[in-house]
């Protein structure tokens, strides 16, 4: 009986330990693999890259929206802050930033119709402790790990709208300061 209880206690302790260690590690692992896959497919660090129009054949992440035009920038702030600037869009659009553990730590509208909209949204991404005093005008997003990912979503249900979104990439910036 005592042996059974000992085994049961060992099972309970290691079960809980393994459950929470694996569960906590999964988001970071998934994000890391997606990042590797993006890098392998030719998406460079610190450069906005337009995703192809979303179809079953072009999808690379789960649950893409086929009505949106996506642009991605892989970020690494270990060497210093990174600046993002994104031109406005005449319909729904957003700039979002995701941490290495998948949390969406920033979302800002790039819809030209939104209240207070400007022609360009400018955001600085940095680690805690990095000096941002000289970049006072831009919005600032502090991430807890150096690797992050930025995403532009623009409503583009047609090929023409997708091409108009793609034409804004040269005027967009994702680069170390």
């Amino acid at each position, binding site marked *: 009986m005592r042996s059974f209880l000992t085994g049961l206690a060992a099972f309970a302790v290691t*079960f809980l330990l393994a459950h*929470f260690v694996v569960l906590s590690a999964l988001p970071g692992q998934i994000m890391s693999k997606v990042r590797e896959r993006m890098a392998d497919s030719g998406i460079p660090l610190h450069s906005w890259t337009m995703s192809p129009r979303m179809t*079953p054949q072009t999808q690379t992440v789960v649950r*893409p*929206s086929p009505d949106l035009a996506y642009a991605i920038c892989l970020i690494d702030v270990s060497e210093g802050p990174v600046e993002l600037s994104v031109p406005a869009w005449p319909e729904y659009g957003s700039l*979002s930033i995701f941490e290495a553990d998948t949390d969406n730590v920033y979302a800002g509208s790039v819809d030209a119709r939104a209240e207070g909209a400007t022609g360009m949204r400018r955001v600085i991404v940095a680690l805690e402790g990095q000096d941002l005093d000289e970049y006072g005008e831009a919005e600032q997003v502090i991430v807890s790990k150096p690797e992050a990912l930025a995403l532009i979503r623009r409503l583009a249900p047609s090929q023409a709208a997708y091409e108009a979104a793609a034409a804004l990439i040269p005027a967009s910036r994702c680069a170390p300061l």
Partner: protein
Amino acid sequence: MRILPLLIGGVLGLAAGAASAFFAAGMIGSGASVGDQIDVNGWKSDWTIGSTSANPWTRARIARHGLLALTKEEAVYFTTNMDSDGNRLSEDCTYEVSGGDMPGQWWSITLYDAQSYLPLNKDNALSFDQTKAASSGAEDAWSFTVAATDPETGNWVSSQAGGDFDMTLRIYRPTPDLIADPEGVLPTPGVKRLACGGDA
């Protein structure tokens, strides 16, 4: 001899703990839903999606089934895998999905397979959205057919190669009312099963 039960219990515990974490995250099987905090007539969501306040189970499920999801202030996601009578959605059946204007800036409904990907077909009929509702002149009373083959008339979202599928309603820039009281404010789309298999 206390070491043997300790060892057996420990090894079994590690294996079961890891397996249960994979299951909870939706890595094993297809049972994981997007969230379970909010359920409005079978359309489920979770307001902590994407946020730092998400619990470990929600964060892991979203990483697997909804990576790069936005927080609720920017977008809310409602997913259903059932018709309005509670039957599992299936590629073998035909459905009519209908609804009205949604409380947000822009919305869409997209069909995904059990692995959370767009179904592998070339029908070019992946989603229905506010733009299509407006262009058909019925933004407040729209409907579309979900079927594996083109119904030839009306709006269509293809379920071909979808298997046991689900549908995600996205509402971008949702109204504060919707966030405060989803059960009272969301006009959930109806999902009516019309026919299955040879019944048509």
